[in-house]
């Protein structure tokens, strides 16, 4: 027999100030299957949780509904309480009467109470049809693949190897280092970047468990957390690698906005990266240099701040002055973003050493004029409130980092999302910063967002730490919200196969019947296949059409009864 316990939370005043909790409790008692209904001041407190557990035992409850805040934050807590009281955690249903009710109808207590009743009725109706679920387990191959051998990928690979995890490092170029290959010194501390790269790749190559693939690309990627199959192609041959985790460190590239500010038309106009190359080869002859910051960023179409360019300009201005103290350097900027103690000190030092700062606005962008003798930059100085002309031997554009041209292919290959600028999107901006929502695939460095070398190393190490969790665990649990097939109803039409974004379904022989089969470890539990099925033969655990249908029925019933 179904015995549902309903627990309505006051959440102090958060819910109780708008929703009449006692009334909702009385209403819940009238719902089919409800054996107990009560309320707690704070259901999530130790006291609240123990009273729920006590009530489960006393009333021999076998389904639990908590009407409180949002499942997105508190579901694991209540599920755990259910488990501790001997109830399968999938027999728990959450009803949100705070974010979705009391907080958005604060001045309508009556309507909020009526709505809370409806929501509870819907939750109870679903709970009655919940079934216990077993979480599956899947083995994890103790090997990782890191894509991209820039500073972030190097840090990730070195860190994985340090933990004793066999690692394949795949780099499309003929040498490692990424963007840092052409940069000698990185700011603001003045670190020797080649030494940094040398240390990391040295550590990697000294490890017997490292495999470095240069001039190589990941051509194919199949599988799921713990069981990826990666095809690495180096132009001549292809090799297949099985891995438990993938780290994406594909980085970014410097934007080269040819045609803007005379770039590509005039030899004296270069980008910061081109200046870096001249500086590392000591080829700089220019004495009068104008740098234009935010060239191509923070403007319509590319609104973001690339974060690293202001510091690059500051550092390179100082390097120019170190090489030729009589040089004149002007930085034309919109705002100087030199966050942190060291970078701020660099900004101050630059001012003290005579670097000139001129502020411009997006509406009045500087104009680069090319003539026979040299170039000049016309800029409207916001501080002076007038137009000034700056003669220059060289104009350096501080352009933003943009996502690499092949990021579309990478995102398709790995089935990971990108943001509107083409950078990869992590699973959660704050809580899961180096993970993709695809389990077992991690992201670090400028592939996600423009970051400096130090941040690349942090993130690379963080991604390695995250990737090592399933690998050292040796197995992964699969949340039981996956799809399941009723082979008797299945017509083997293949609609679900094409609908599945994760290639988790195949039509195959299922105990003598030709039907769809879901690979549980690969299924992410989206339910797309469910809606694609014409026969109602495929269902998502915890979100079946019977359960959702019952919620609709309950809403109709609660409304008609409420109206009477």
């Amino acid at each position: 027999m179904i015995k549902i316990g309903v627990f309505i939370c006051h959440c102090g005043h958060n819910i109780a100030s708008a929703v009449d909790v006692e009334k909702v409790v009385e209403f819940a008692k009238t719902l089919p299957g409800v054996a107990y209904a009560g309320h707690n001041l704070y259901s999530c407190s130790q006291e609240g949780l123990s009273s729920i557990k006590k009530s489960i035992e006393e009333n021999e409850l076998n389904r639990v509904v908590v009407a409180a805040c949002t499942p997105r934050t508190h579901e694991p807590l209540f599920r755990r309480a259910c488990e501790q009281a001997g109830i399968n955690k999938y027999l728990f249903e959450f009803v949100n009467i705070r974010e979705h009710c009391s907080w958005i109808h604060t001045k309508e207590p009556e309507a909020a109470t009526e709505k809370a009743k409806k929501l509870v009725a819907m939750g109870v109706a679903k709970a009655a049809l919940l079934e216990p679920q077993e979480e599956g387990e899947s083995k994890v191959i103790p090997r990782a693949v890191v894509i991209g051998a820039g500073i972030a990928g190097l840090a990730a690979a070195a860190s994985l190897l340090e933990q004793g995890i066999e690692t394949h490092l795949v780099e499309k170029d003929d040498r490692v280092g990424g963007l840092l290959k052409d940069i000698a010194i990185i700011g603001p501390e003045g670190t020797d970047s080649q030494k940094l790269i040398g240390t990391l790749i040295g550590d990697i190559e000294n490890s017997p468990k490292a495999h470095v693939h240069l001039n190589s690309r990941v051509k194919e990627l199949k599988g799921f957390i713990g069981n990826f199959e990666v095809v690495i192609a180096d132009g001549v041959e292809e090799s297949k690698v099985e891995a438990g985790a993938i780290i994406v460190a594909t980085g970014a590239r410097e934007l080269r906005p040819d045609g803007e500010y005379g770039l590509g038309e005039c030899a004296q106009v270069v980008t910061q990266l081109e200046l870096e190359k001249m500086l590392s080869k000591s080829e700089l002859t220019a004495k009068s240099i104008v740098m234009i910051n935010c060239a191509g960023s923070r403007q319509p179409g590319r609104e973001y701040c690339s974060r690293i360019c202001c510091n690059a300009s500051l550092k390179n201005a100082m390097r120019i002055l170190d090489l030729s103290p009589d040089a004149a350097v002007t930085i034309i900027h919109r705002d100087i973003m030199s966050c942190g103690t060291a970078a701020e000190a660099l900004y101050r030092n630059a001012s003290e050493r005579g670097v000139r700062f001129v502020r411009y606005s997006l509406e009045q962008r500087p104009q680069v004029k090319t003539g026979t003798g040299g170039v000049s930059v016309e800029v409207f100085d916001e501080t002076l409130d007038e137009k000034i002309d700056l003669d220059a031997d060289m104009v350096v554009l501080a352009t933003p980092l943009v996502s690499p041209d092949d990021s579309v292919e990478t995102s398709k290959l790995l089935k990971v999302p990108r943001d509107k600028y083409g950078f990869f999107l992590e699973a959660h901006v704050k809580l899961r910063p180096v993970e993709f929502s695809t389990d077992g695939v991690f992201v670090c460095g400028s592939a996600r967002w423009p970051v400096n070398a130090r941040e690349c190393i942090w993130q690379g190490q963080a991604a390695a730490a995250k990737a090592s969790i399933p690998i050292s665990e040796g197995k992964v649990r699969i949340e039981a919200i996956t799809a399941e097939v009723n082979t008797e109803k299945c017509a083997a039409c293949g609609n679900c196969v094409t609908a599945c974004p994760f290639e988790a379904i195949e039509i195959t022989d299922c105990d003598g019947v030709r039907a769809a089969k879901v690979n549980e470890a690969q299924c992410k539990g989206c339910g797309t296949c469910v809606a694609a099925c014409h026969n109602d033969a495929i269902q998502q655990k915890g979100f079946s059409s019977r359960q959702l249908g019952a919620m609709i029925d309950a809403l109709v019933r609660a409304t008609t009864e409420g109206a009477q």
Partner: protein
Amino acid sequence: MSEFNPNILAFCCNWCSYAGADLAGVNRLQMPPNVNVVRVMCSASVKPEYVFKALSQGIDGVLVLGCHIGDCHYLTGNHRTAKRIPLAARILEKVGIDPKRVRLDWVSAAEGEKFQHVVTEFVEDIRKLGPNPMREVRF
């Protein structure tokens, strides 16, 4: 007769629009109390049958909210939603139910204000349409 109070069902995907609705709550954004949210993992799991079932039983309107195109937690799930729900609306029109009773929209986890806006506007639209005629023939 008392004022018509629409009874609305909303399907919100777990990752974007449900989170957007949560954010609206966290920011105490006020909106009409007519919309009842059902959480699904992806808007693409919303069967057109659910929409038909709700409307045939007299629910006045159905909202389907998902992640913005390109932001789907399941990569391309919402591409299917974008095709299915407008198709469901066309079928409704064929059987004589105003297709405006179903609305598809995209609300990200960061768009609490958009959730408020969509809910408020939809309730207003349904109010204008009046009660679902199927209320009378409920079986």
